[in-house]
Structure formats: structure tokens, C-alpha cells
């Protein structure tokens, strides 16, 4: 089971700044293990953040994103107490959704 994401969402001025830390191996498919065998590709392909049914961030990722990635984005129109959900889906079809509450 994948680790929970660490999500922080804070109002700064007229924007809500969101930082997400994701635990994932993000295998490129080009690395070899100790025995010389290619480690199969396995990485997050899609990240989406929604609040109140509205998509405020989405990204399509390839193998070039690091292991345990950190992302930051901001959006307008948030207020303290809003809930924001972040979801990722990887090449194995595994997915995980976590939620955070917007703070001041």
C-alpha cells in the first residue's frame, strides 16, 4: 500500500498555496538492479487536485519525475476550511487519494 501523501494548503494573499509530497518509487524503466536486470517502469502518470468538485490542478507525468516527488501549485478563490483532494494514478493502475483542509 502506498504511503499517504503529505498535503499542506495555506492561504497566502489572494491565493491558496498547496504543497504535496508523494511517496512513490517512480521507476524510469531504464535502471538495472544488482543482478543486471532492467527494473520495469512504474511511475505516476496523472495527478489531479480538486476542491468542491472543481479541478484546480492536473498534471501528466512521465518517467523523468524524481522518486518521492514534491509539487507546489496555487489557485485563487479558496477560503479557510475548504477541503482539497489530491489523487494520483500510476502505470500499474494503482491510485491514492488524500485530503487536506485549507488553513490561514
Amino acid at each position, binding site marked *: 500500500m502506498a504511503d499517504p501523501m503529505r498535503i499542506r494548503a495555506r492561504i497566502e494573499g489572494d491565493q491558496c498555496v498547496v504543497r504535496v509530497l508523494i511517496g512513490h*518509487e517512480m521507476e524510469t524503466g531504464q535502471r538495472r538492479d544488482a543482478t543486471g536486470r532492467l527494473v520495469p517502469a512504474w511511475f505516476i502518470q496523472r495527478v489531479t487536485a480538486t476542491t468542491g468538485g472543481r479541478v484546480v490542478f492536473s498534471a501528466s507525468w512521465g518517467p523523468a519525475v524524481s522518486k518521492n516527488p514534491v509539487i507546489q501549485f496555487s489557485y485563487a478563490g479558496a477560503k479557510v476550511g475548504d477541503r482539497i483532494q489530491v489523487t494520483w494514478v500510476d502505470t500499474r493502475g494503482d491510485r491514492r487519494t488524500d485530503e487536506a483542509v485549507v488553513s490561514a
Partner: protein
Amino acid sequence: MPDSRRPVWWAALGGLLALALGTASVVAQSAQETAREIERYREAVADSSPGELWEARGEDLWKMPRGPRNVSLERCDLGQGPGVVAGALARLPRWFADADRVMDLETRLLHCMVTLQGLDPAVLRRQPFGNGEQRSDFEALSAWIAAQSRGMTLAPPLDHPAERAAWRLGRELFFVRGGTHDFACTTCHAQSGRRIRLQELPNLSRPEEARRVLGTWPAYRVSQGEMRTLQWRMNDCFRQQRFPDLVFGSEVSVALVSYLLHNASGAALAAPGVRR
């Protein structure tokens, strides 16, 4: 006549030297750039370092009943009394009466897992360092425990004779040369401003330099995407030194950690830190 040829040789040698110096300065420059980029990365992830993933798992592992006895580690005495984690790292390694030996953080955790939870030490020793999906409980627990000493001053005790003996043994081991390459720790770590390839090598016998680096262990190692402990660092430097496999939690490993952490005494703890 050989004498007339000499200037040519000198000119050729001079050219080679200039080339070598040129390459050296390019390498030195990119070493500085690498160091700067790592510093930039550290700043960028300061309030959301991937190390937090290990901290979160470490806290769960501390509180979760496990092993044949199905108990948590919350009765584990890290030196400040059973269950006390705040400030524990600042006062390790230390002598423990119940085991009658000096232990560093990971060695003490191993002791608690065996004596409290009834886990098998041979099995635990097989997985002291994580590798991708195979995770190490020691790395997660160490990360969380270290975070509970952030901002405190490193001051490992040196009162008990066993603590002094461990420190002395560590100091001796730091200087002893051996193995296929006749290396000692000092071969790589006793001069300031040195590097291997692009990696800076701190002079660990100097307190200023020891303080600068050792207060940030355990540390998230970016190039491996893993949390690494000092036991891992000792193990990997033993490998670089072409010494035999260092046994996790052994007397030698703890002695080396004792020597290093005493050199760094007075450091402000900022672990888990970030390494390249």
C-alpha cells in the same frame, strides 16, 4: 644530442600540465555547482522534505504493537526513560545498564525490538537498510526519533568508563590503515577542502567540520531516494575503504559513531537532513 631535445620535452610537459590544471579547475567548478544545487534543493524542500514520509512511518512503527509479544516500542528506553523520545538523540551514544554496553540510536532500537517485542535479531539484521519497496524499520524509526531532538544541542555523555572506551576505540579505528588499498578513514576524511569526484569530503577529525555535518544525520539521500542512518554511512564507508562487511550494531560500528559524534559535540541538531 639528448641535451638539445630537453626544451621540447619541457614544453610538452608544460602543455600536459596546463591541460591537467585546466581539467582540474573545470571539475572543481562543477563540484561547487553541484554543492550549490544541492543547497538550493535543500532550501526548496525545507518544509516538505521527502524525509517526512519516513518520519510519519517511524511514528506509526513506534506506536504499533508488533512482534511475538504484540507490544509497541512505547516502553523502549532510549536513555531518557521508557518511552521518552524528545531529546534522546542529543544524548546518544551512551552506556545502557540493562545491556551493559554502549549503544547508538539504531543499536538501541534493535535491542528494544528484541527484548520488548520479541523480534528475531538475525532477521532484523538482514534488513537494516532500505532499498526501494523493501523498507527498513530502522531508517523510519530513526528519522522520527531524530526529528524529536531538532534544535537541541548534541552532547553525548562521556562519563561511564564504557563510553570513554568506545570513544577511544573509535578514534583508533578512524586512524588505522588496512585492507587491499591500505586505506584508513583518514585517507579520505582528514584534510579540509577535498573531494572525491564531485563529492565534498569533510575533515571529520576537526570539530568545526564534524559539527557542520553530523547534526543532520539521519539524512534523506536524494540520489538514492532513501533515508539513511549513521549505521548505513559507516557500513558504506567501510565498503569504500575495502574493509570487511561492517555488522549492524556491532561494537566497531558504535565505536566509530561515538568518535564522530563526540567530535561533533555542541552541534545544533537538524536531523533528518538532506544529502546528495
